[in-house]
């Protein structure tokens, strides 16, 4: 019985089952119920086999299980399109099935390897600190299983094996960190169809009454920002997302969004169009996955990243929807002027009103205020004052609006969330001939006192307005600020915290307990940890690597790294070669052996192979018996070789002789064609 067929120690099975449970657990909830059930059933079956209640499944049953599970998986995942989920599912099933036929060491080793792979697969779905800690624990347990497998049974104890596994993993960590930091990040050759997490909505590209206030029910993180120097004031933090400039009487959309294609979004030199006048803020954003292709920044953004485009609304777009955490660096000039000259198409879009327009009262209001004012800016301020002075009420739960939404809101309900104010404000502007548009995004954010970065949550979602003024370009106007100034200056939760409906979707979020001091501290601490993790580990990419290396090695970091890596690989191979080949001096003796062995290969080709353990003299005798024609040559060569190899006084000249004889004999043994090669190309002689 060879080593590989040996039975698995009992302790190992427990370790293995523990490891497998750890590996599979995070997938169980995600997988379809029947697959989870199948997995649990298989594990229970294995335990029953282990304690001797049932036997191993027979061949027929095994085949049945596999042939049932395979098409069922395919059917289950048919609709999803992404092959990744199905592949992961099959991998897990395969691992669990292997458990049922795990009888020998070899099977066990396969399961161990699969467990390692599955642990890594888990990172496709989650890259949080928790996931990393879970993976670490899993590695320790898998390694423990491996340890028990390798150690003999007598010395095995749970504690001892655990300790050794812990030590092995601990020893691997520094190496893993070095590799993580130093190994060049190469863009993947293929893109993984990353699974999309559903139910996550952020700001969308359509604004209708109610859909921003619905975001305030969620305490989900939208993005986190760390400012390089000083963070701007709360009321300056308008995170622009999209500009919506088409109004259909009820909701706002992007103009021409129906035929919006990526080709239309052009990057142009914003230095020409928009004047940057200082107030520069540098910051770094980690955006949670939005499944959308626009990203958020302060006006007016400047950036280096090549995968971000800025369109003529100064909104920013990525090439692909953001399906994973996305990190980008920005510099924004808070004092800026954009579009001092308004092009025809933008102007006409900024003046668009629904046809037919069903808000006559609003039109009247606009005309009245317009008549009183001296200019566009004065008019805008009068409208703002109107919002301030009339009994408008800022609420998360406004009443439903009727057909004529603007009229209904302005003169009837007077209750609304920011989208109502932004919408009606822009409407009033446009009605008076002032170019205006709605901007959606986020406003404000909570500063984490421990790490000094800003967290922006879904409930920070906001809508505001921009109007175009002669000589000033686009100017931001926030009618919500006129109604509920605290919303802008102190943030959403200060105002909304007491309102019914706020954070209703995040019933168990720690955010709800922000008034309990220690829980709030804990929340902020945890978030700070998570942020640091995301910032330095998950989003550690080529750029960050380069930055880090430049800090250590100066400007030529990349080359230095490549040289260093090359050198260390070379060094590794040299050391390995030294250990593998070294120790034996390569002298004439070894060369003689090499020549002799080469002759043996040729002899084996002609049907005379040396038996294992057969000495050269015995072999020569045997050859002499079966091939009298080469007996003399063989005897002479063997005598020389034996002298060279085993005698004390091996002379170097006899090496030349040996070489000659061996070549001669090999020529006699060879085919005519090979003879030519051997004769003319010494390189082929070894």
């Amino acid at each position, binding site marked *: 019985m060879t080593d590989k067929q040996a039975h698995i120690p009992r302790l190992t099975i427990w370790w293995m089952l523990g490891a497998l449970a750890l590996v599979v657990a995070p997938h169980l909830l995600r997988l379809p119920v029947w697959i989870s059930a199948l997995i649990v059933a298989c594990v229970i079956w294995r335990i029953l086999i282990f304690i001797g209640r049932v036997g191993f499944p027979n061949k027929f049953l095994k085949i049945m299980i596999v042939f049932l599970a395979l098409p069922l998986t395919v059917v289950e995942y048919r609709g999803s399109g992404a092959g990744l989920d199905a592949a992961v599912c099959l991998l897990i099933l395969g691992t669990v099935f292997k458990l049922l036929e795990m009888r020998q060491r070899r099977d066990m080793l396969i399961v161990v390897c699969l467990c390692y792979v599955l642990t890594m697969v888990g990172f496709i779905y989650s890259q949080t600190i928790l996931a990393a800690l879970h993976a670490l624990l899993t590695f320790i347990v898998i390694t423990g299983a491996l340890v028990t497998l390798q150690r003999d049974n007598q010395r095995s104890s749970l504690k001892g094996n655990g300790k050794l596994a812990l030590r092995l993993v601990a020893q691997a960590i520094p190496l893993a960190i070095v590799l993580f930091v130093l190994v060049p990040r190469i863009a993947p050759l293929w893109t993984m169809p990353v699974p999309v997490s559903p139910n996550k909505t952020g700001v969308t590209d359509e604004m209708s009454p109610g859909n921003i206030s619905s975001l305030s029910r969620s305490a989900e993180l939208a993005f986190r920002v760390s400012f390089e120097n000083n963070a701007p004031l709360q009321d300056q933090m308008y995170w622009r997302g999209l500009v919506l400039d088409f109004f259909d009487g009820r909701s706002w959309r992007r103009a021409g969004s129906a035929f919006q294609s990526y080709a239309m979004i052009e990057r142009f030199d914003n230095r020409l169009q928009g004047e940057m006048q200082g107030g520069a803020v540098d910051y770094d954003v980690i955006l949670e996955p939005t499944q959308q292709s626009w990203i958020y920044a302060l006006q007016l953004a400047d950036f280096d990243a090549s995968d971000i485009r800025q369109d003529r609304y100064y909104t920013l777009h990525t090439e692909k929807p953001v399906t994973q955490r996305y990190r980008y660096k920005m510099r924004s000039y808070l004092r800026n002027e954009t579009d001092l000259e308004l092009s025809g198409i933008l102007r006409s879009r900024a003046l668009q009103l629904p046809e037919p327009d069903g808000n006559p009262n609003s039109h009247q209001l606009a005309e009245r205020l317009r008549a009183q004012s001296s200019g566009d800016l004065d008019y805008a301020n009068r409208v703002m004052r109107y919002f301030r002075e009339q009994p408008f009420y800022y609420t998360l739960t406004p009443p439903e609006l009727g057909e004529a939404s603007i009229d209904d809101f302005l003169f009837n309900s007077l209750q609304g969330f920011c989208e109502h104010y932004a919408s009606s404000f822009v409407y009033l502007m446009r009605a008076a001939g002032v170019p205006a548009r709605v901007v959606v995004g986020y406003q404000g954010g909570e500063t984490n006192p421990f790490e000094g970065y800003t967290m922006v949550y879904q409930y920070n979602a906001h809508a505001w307005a921009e109007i175009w003024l002669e000589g000033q370009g686009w100017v931001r106007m926030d009618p919500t600020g006129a109604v509920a100034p605290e919303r802008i200056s102190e943030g959403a939760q200060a105002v909304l915290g007491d309102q019914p409906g706020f954070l209703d979707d995040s019933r168990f979020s720690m955010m709800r307990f922000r008034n309990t001091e220690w829980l709030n501290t804990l929340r902020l601490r945890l978030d700070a940890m998570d942020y640091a993790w995301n910032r330095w580990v998950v989003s550690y990419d080529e750029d960050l690597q380069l930055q880090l290396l430049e800090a250590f090695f100066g400007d030529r970091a990349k080359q230095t790294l490549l040289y260093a890596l090359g050198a260390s690989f070379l060094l590794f191979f040299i050391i390995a070669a030294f250990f593998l080949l070294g120790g034996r001096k390569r002298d004439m*003796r070894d060369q003689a*052996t090499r020549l002799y*062995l080469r002759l043996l290969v040729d002899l084996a080709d002609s049907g005379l192979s040396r*038996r*294992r*353990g*057969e*000495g*050269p*003299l*015995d072999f020569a005798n045997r050859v002499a018996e079966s091939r009298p024609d080469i007996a003399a040559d063989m005897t002479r060569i063997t005598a020389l070789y*034996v*002298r060279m*190899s*085993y*005698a*004390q006084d*091996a002379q170097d000249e006899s090496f030349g002789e040996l070489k000659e004889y061996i070549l001669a004999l090999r020529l006699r043994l060879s085919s005519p064609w090979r003879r030519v090669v051997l004769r003319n190309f010494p390189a082929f002689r070894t």
Partner: protein
Amino acid sequence: MQQRIQAAVDEIGTVLLGKEQQIRLALCCLIAGGHLLIEDLPGMGKTTLAHALARVFGLDFNRIQFTSDLLPADILGVSIFEQQSGAFTFHPGPIFRQMILADEINRTTPKTQSALLEAMEEGQVTVEGETRPLPSPFFVIATQNPVSLSGTFPLPESQLDRFLMRIGIGYPDPKAERALLERSAEFDRGDFITQMMNVDDLVAMRSAANRVSLSPLLLDYVQRIVAHTRDSEAFHFGLSPRGSIAVVRAAKTWAFLEGREHAVPEDVQAILPAVVEHRLRASTDAEGRTGSALAHRLMSEVDVF
């Protein structure tokens, strides 16, 4: 020298027909200065071989028949009070000879066995507190019946280890047996052997065998063999360093017998069964029968180079 050795081999071959390999191994053992254990069934010619070996070298020879009631003093000798001188004088036992044939060594008790084996190892005996050297050269040729026979005290591994070689003789082939049957009855004793060499020749041969050179390649081979006995699961335990020294010593002597000045793998292979098999036990062998065929297994599993 080789011719004289061949002549000696042929001379012994006149009484032990068709067993040249065994005779050469026995000679090799003697020249290497080791003790020899001959194991075979009764009547196979063990005693004849021992006798012939002694005579061919002209050695002072004594035979001790081991029985179950033999005591250490019967071998080593005793001090006896003599009335004339009024003192104890030591009467040396039969062991004080150059060559001892310890016949059927495993029929005696372990106590007596170990007395002999101690003498073999030390080259001296201690009786009543006084240490007396044994003659030089000092050889022991022990014969034993196979362990499976009844009425035997098997030698433990530790004592088997002290024999350089263990050989069996085996049944003669039909031709040799016919010749044996045809010859006259009184011819089967070693007394007809003529002396071919003397003690000085033996010493000279021993030093010549010592000069046989060992190349690194050959030592590698020996080490691979030894390592294999220690690593492989086929063996209960591996060869001791004493065992590996014995392999080299015997291989050198064999090379000398073959007329070579250097040892080759074939020399190692020739002596390997005799030198290692009584020191090894197959892992499947729970009863402690040290194994034959293990050496062949070793030879076929270890690469020569």
